[in-house]
């Protein structure tokens, strides 16, 4: 027993260590990935074609052209998408677990006036000027939200809505004004609305690379601080970790991520690149570090897919396609996530129902055999139907299920049913569970003997091995149920001889019949 506990501890301990190493490895992997991207972006220029200069005709050829890194324009787009997906995915993870999705949305809309002013600075699409303007306005917007909630009775949702719409309106006015100006190179500013990955220039990519590397370094180095910040900020503050500083760093990085992603995704939809990958990842895991990794991967995937669809559609705006790709991933996660998926749950219910059905049929067969004191081998379908108060056809349908799962075989066109050894073990197990539980209810929980059957019918299917062991110990290894029926022994259950049973016990099975 003691030995067993230590073993369990060891396993637990190693899995904790394992997750730490996994985290470290994955951060290493992302750095390698970044290096590869850098190499690709800096690779020699093959042929400077713009996206959309369609040479190929079929979608397949276009896919090949897009993903083969053959031409420089597309290569920039691809690298840009991967970078923005990684950056937004990582920061989005924090935004979502901290329930700040609307803050992200407000931030992304509030930057528009800053972009316009950055553009006006020297009437050109200068990435640095635009980034400075956008970041200043984004953070200013968030500050205004905080200021409104502190000084008035308005709650955060109203303040967010107010700032989002007013800043966005100002931005649209400025952008329209710029487009009507007679002078200057106006191309590009319109791309900020709905996003065009093809408009990404080399300078934009460099900026993206810098912000992504900074984000990655901060997240890896300060992971524990960020975890505490997201889970329990006040506690973190009392331990002396720099919670305020970390909060502001994350907000600043989020603003940067939004601004550099803006050109590819567009002002209106960029916040979804923060929210959708992280929300999808939230459905897949219960640990923050894994959530961040999944969100980064999903972010990169959706960004690339979006850019590809937009390329296929002859330079349609990229933003909507990225968001649609992300939504697709989310729907898949929603349906098939291993723990919370809708489909997964249906499937689990179905298989549980089928198992219960099988176990009930096996139990009925056992009871029929038991009633004739185990004389003879096969059980007739009619007898089972009689015992279960069911039709022969229904029993035959169920037997087909047993045959498929290797628990029984049938003969004489389904009239006779025979246990396989595995099926007999399961039948013994389920009868044993049933009778042990009945005994527990009458002897320990003091139920009346005629009240226990219904409950045991349900419980017999869900009793785990551990619970059965505990029941046995509590009931001092009984062999008769409250109605006087024998409880099948472990030897019946495991279908083994005395010697085998003894050997198993010495092996530390911990069971004493």
């Amino acid at each position, binding site marked *: 027993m003691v030995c067993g506990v230590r073993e369990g501890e060891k396993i637990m301990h190693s899995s904790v260590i394992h997750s730490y190493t996994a985290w470290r490895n994955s951060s290493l992997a992302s750095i390698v990935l970044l290096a590869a991207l850098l190499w690709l972006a800096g690779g020699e220029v093959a042929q400077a074609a713009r996206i959309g200069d369609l040479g190929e005709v079929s979608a397949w050829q276009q896919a090949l052209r897009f993903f083969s890194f053959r031409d420089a324009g597309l290569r920039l787009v691809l690298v840009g998408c991967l970078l923005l997906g990684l950056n937004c995915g990582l920061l989005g993870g924090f935004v979502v677990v901290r329930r700040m999705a609307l803050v992200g949305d407000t931030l992304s809309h509030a930057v528009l006036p800053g972009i316009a002013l950055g553009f006006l600075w020297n009437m050109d699409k200068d990435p640095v000027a635009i980034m400075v303007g956008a970041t200043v306005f984004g953070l200013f917007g968030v500050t205004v939200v905080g200021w409104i909630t502190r000084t008035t009775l308005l709650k955060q949702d109203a303040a967010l809505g107010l700032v989002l719409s007013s800043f966005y309106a100002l931005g649209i006015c400025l952008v329209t004004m710029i487009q009507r100006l007679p002078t200057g190179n106006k191309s590009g500013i319109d791309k900020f609305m709905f996003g065009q990955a093809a408009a990404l220039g080399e300078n934009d990519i460099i900026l993206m690379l810098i912000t992504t590397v900074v984000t990655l370094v901060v997240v890896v180095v300060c992971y524990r601080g960020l975890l505490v910040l997201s889970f329990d900020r006040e506690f973190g*503050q009392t331990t*002396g970790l720099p919670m305020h500083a970390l909060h502001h760093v994350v907000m600043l990085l989020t603003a940067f991520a939004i601004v550099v992603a803006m050109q590819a995704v567009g002002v209106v939809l960029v916040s979804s690149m923060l929210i959708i990958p992280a929300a999808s990842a939230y459905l897949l895991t219960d640990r923050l570090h894994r959530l961040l990794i999944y969100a980064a991967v999903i972010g990169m995937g959706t960004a690339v897919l979006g850019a590809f669809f937009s390329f296929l559609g002859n330079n349609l705006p990229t933003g909507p396609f990225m968001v649609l790709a992300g939504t697709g991933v989310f729907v898949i996660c929603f349906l098939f996530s291993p723990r919370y998926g809708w489909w997964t749950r249906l499937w689990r219910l179905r298989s549980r129902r089928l198992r219960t059905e099988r176990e009930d049929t096996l139990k009925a067969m056992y009871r029929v055999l038991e009633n004739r004191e185990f004389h003879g081998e096969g059980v007739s379908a009619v007898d089972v139907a009689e015992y279960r108060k069911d039709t022969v056809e229904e029993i035959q349908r169920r037997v087909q299920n047993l045959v498929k799962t290797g628990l029984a075989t049938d003969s004489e066109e389904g009239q006779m049913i025979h246990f396989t050894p595995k099926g007999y073990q399961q039948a013994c197990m389920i009868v044993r569970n049933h009778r042990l539980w009945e005994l527990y209810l009458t002897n320990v929980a003091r139920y009346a003997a005629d009240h226990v059957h219904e409950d045991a019918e349900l419980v017999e299917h869900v009793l785990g091995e551990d619970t059965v062991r505990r029941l046995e110990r509590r009931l001092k290894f009984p062999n008769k149920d409250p109605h006087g029926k024998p409880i099948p022994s472990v030897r019946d259950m495991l279908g083994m001889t005395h010697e085998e049973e003894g050997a198993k016990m010495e092996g530390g099975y911990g069971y004493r019949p």
Partner: protein
Amino acid sequence: MKEGELESVPALETHDLSVAYHKKPVLYGVDLTIPKGQLVGIVGPNGAGKSTLIKAVMGLLPLRSGWVEVFGQPFKKTKTRVGYVPQRESVDWDFPVNVMDVVMMGRYGKLGLFRRPKKKDRDIARECLDKVKMLPFANRQISNLSGGQQQRVFLARALAQESDLYLMDEPFAGVDAATEAAIIELLKELKERGKTILVVHHDLTTAREYFDSMVLLNMRVVAFGPTEQVFTVEQLQKTYGGRLTLLSDVAGETERQLSGE
């Protein structure tokens, strides 16, 4: 206990501590001197400022006046000697972490932002989990815990801080009887080891048997001292006999006028 520290230095001392929430005063001129090695209950009606007092001590709320000293120094210098158990409802229990992650957070204060947790830290966290009988659940996601188990996880996190002064905000709220008994056992053991523990408590029926001394609080300290002296009908009536409406009104009005509303 730190070496070279005088035995007589109190674990916690506040002087004329006042706190206001949204311009409404919540605590008024709180003077407390809590010696080391005591298990102290903070008792008072809803809205009496019990949690506020704890948070103010740790600098989570701005002080309107007064000062706080922990082991004879400002809180900022003694942070690592103070452990904190916040109210259970203060965090999102659907957050994607498991029990071990949460307890490890108790070590981060001593580790700082950049140092990685060593094996020693993980061993301490496991020991603390074992003390509150939560070690078997170390890998469980925190949303799959009962209220009592969640509370014990928070307690284990505070234990992992290895502090000399513990501030606990309603650790008995919404827990089962078994957990409550286990927690009080643990608190008594901590006290035996010379730790000082301040517990916000709302259940008067158990307060008397749990604590050596008590702070009766209702916006200001109504009474403070050994339980048998403080826990009297007269004092309790003073504490629970309605808020100090006049004090609250006048102070609120003054604040409003000063801030130009």
